[in-house]
């Protein structure tokens, strides 16, 4: 059996697949890429058992075959061949010959029927969303995810579909970000799933074309995202996401409105002299002014004062400056709104008009 594939067609899909394959594998077959030759298509699959990428490319072919090839080695061969070269694969027994021009390689294979790819069953729920919007939603939340937390539900991202609303939530226990928007086509159901951290990171990388429509399907076990000819799948986290809505249902002080850029610049400057490890800065609120200050173990001090529209009792509260900066940087509006809980238990940072993006940061004790 012989197949001819152009290098340019193969390279990008193969790179995407290799990116999910981990270097250290528990099973030898997982370092291979599954290649299924069907009529005029080649379907390639790579997985690390947590996420899976399947891509389809068009080739001229009439014979059916299934093989697995060492992914990284095959990618390196393709990558280092001259641009535009045709790559010819010859399948014979448990070896595959790779020929191109005057180069010749023989790769070993493992039986394709032993490849543990995700099952292709129908998934219960589906919706469509614009890739640009979904990527924006992911980017505004992913940085809040925990990594390697024992509360493993925090090492992921909550995706909540409630008819025509989509909501993404991430938290590491110290801060939380919520992104909400409308879906163009109402989904007609309510569902909550948790995507694992690795899956989210991989997905963000795949969404490079903001124009296309994504078809997203999920069940209680898996999520499957179809991006043109690529299908991304991930196992879901087996847990319930903690109820964070109570944070919004408490008494708050009057919100403060500050020019986003002004606050960001002030914070960045003050941050220089904050404790390098804890990054704490103090917010001293009084009528019409916000004083931001920091000091470090070397007794150096920084102070900035910003005029605000705050009315109420004077208040002093401290935050990790990095958390506040992360939030401010993700806000799209000119003005940022800071709302502090009346018992000083948290601060909500959001966009005053749209309120599609909200960020909660817990205070520090200095």
């Amino acid at each position, binding site marked *: 059996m012989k197949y001819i594939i152009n290098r340019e067609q193969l390279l990008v899909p193969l790179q995407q697949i290799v990116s999910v394959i981990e270097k250290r594998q528990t099973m030898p077959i997982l370092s291979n890429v599954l290649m299924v030759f069907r009529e005029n298509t080649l379907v390639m699959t790579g997985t690390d*058992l947590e996420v899976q990428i399947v891509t389809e490319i068009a080739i001229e072919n009439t014979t059916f075959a299934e093989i697995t090839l060492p992914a990284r080695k095959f990618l390196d061969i393709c990558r280092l061949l001259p641009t535009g070269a045709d790559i010819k694969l010859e399948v014979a027994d448990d070896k595959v010959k790779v020929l191109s021009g005057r180069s010749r390689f023989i790769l070993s294979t493992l039986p394709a029927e032993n490849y543990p790819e995700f099952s292709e069953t129908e998934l219960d729920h589906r919706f469509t969303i614009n890739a640009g919007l979904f990527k924006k939603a992911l980017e505004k939340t992913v940085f809040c995810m925990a990594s390697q937390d024992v509360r493993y539900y925090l090492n992921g991202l909550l995706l909540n579909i409630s008819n025509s609303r989509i909501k993404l939530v991430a938290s590491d226990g110290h801060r939380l970000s919520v992104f909400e928007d409308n879906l163009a086509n109402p989904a007609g159901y309510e569902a909550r799933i948790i995507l694992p951290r690795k899956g989210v990171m991989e997905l963000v990388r795949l969404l490079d074309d903001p124009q296309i429509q994504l078809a997203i399907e999920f069940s209680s076990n898996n999520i499957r995202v179809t991006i043109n000819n690529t299908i991304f799948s991930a196992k879901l986290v087996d847990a319930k996401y903690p109820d964070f809505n109570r944070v919004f249902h408490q008494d708050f002080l009057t919100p403060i409105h500050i020019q986003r850029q002004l606050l960001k610049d002030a914070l960045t400057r003050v941050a220089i002299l904050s404790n390098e490890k804890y990054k704490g800065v103090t917010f001293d609120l009084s009528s019409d002014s916000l004083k931001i200050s920091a000091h470090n173990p070397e007794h150096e001090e920084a102070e900035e004062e910003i005029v605000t529209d705050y009315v109420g009792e004077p208040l002093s509260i401290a935050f990790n400056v990095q958390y506040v900066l992360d939030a401010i940087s993700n806000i799209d509006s000119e003005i940022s709104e800071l709302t502090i809980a009346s018992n000083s238990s948290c601060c909500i940072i959001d966009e005053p008009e749209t309120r599609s993006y909200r960020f909660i940061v817990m205070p520090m004790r200095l």
Partner: protein
Amino acid sequence: MTITPDLLPWQEADWQHLVRYITGQRIPQAVLFAGNKGIGKSRLAERFAHSLLCSQTDTNGLPCGQCHSCQLVNAQTHPDYIRLNPEEPGKAIKVDQIRHILSVLSLKPQYEANRVVIVEPADQLNISAVNAFLKFLEEPSERTVLLLITDKPSRLPATLMSRCQKVYFSKPDPERVKQWLFDQGIKKDSELLLSVSKGSPLLALDYASNNTLELRRKCFDQWLDIAALRTHPYIVSEQWVKLDPALLLTWITGWVTDLIKCCFHLPAERLINRDLFEDLHKSAQTLELSRLYSVYDLMLTSRNRIDTQLNKQLLFDELLIEWAQLNEK
């Protein structure tokens, strides 16, 4: 390539017990397989795991052998079939291994059937590994079954025991086992093999195929030589430490037990080492019983020490010197 292990003739009842879990749809979240070494616990656990993973088990709870799951199990690439063993044989299962497994298990199983984790040997989980595992053991994620295998259930912490359904494997019927050994091509010495392996068929088979009886005879002669002061304990212990220390210790314990039995004039059939009866009987007549018991105590202490970091040669030195002194009078 592993295929679903066949049922050994003495496991029928145990297997039916496990199958009832599946057919009755009352699969426990954690099952502890406890029983002597070499009676096929792992084989039964693997077989049970295979049934749990198959998507189309028949009415007898047997895997179909045809579906994609069965294919992957046979190729050892099933993503929902996880084995947890020490990184090196004889070493402990460390907490990092448990943490890694837990992060894998926090995700949903890949396929529609169950997910199985086999922990073997469970008594090799070190204390921090056990503690890290307890929470999950009590409430695993959905469709996950944990199978723990041990031949030393007494070493497991109570906190772990209490979280498992226990399946105890008793010693199989000797007549049946003898027949089985015969079918396996063991035509002679089957009685003795079984006695030396304490009734564990797979161990007996292993002894027969490795000519272990010959090695045992050689070691026994060396042991008698020490008693007769024909050789020095250090010389022997230096040789013994290169063999399998745990096995040797079992043998010496057996010899000492038999010596004590000989002191009470028990007939040869009641001994573990029937073939050595004459030598043992002769040697027992010159020995003081109370001191023999103190050697026996030392054996038991050594057995607890054998899995630790203790220098094995020093362990044998101590045993053999004690034995030599016993014979000096």
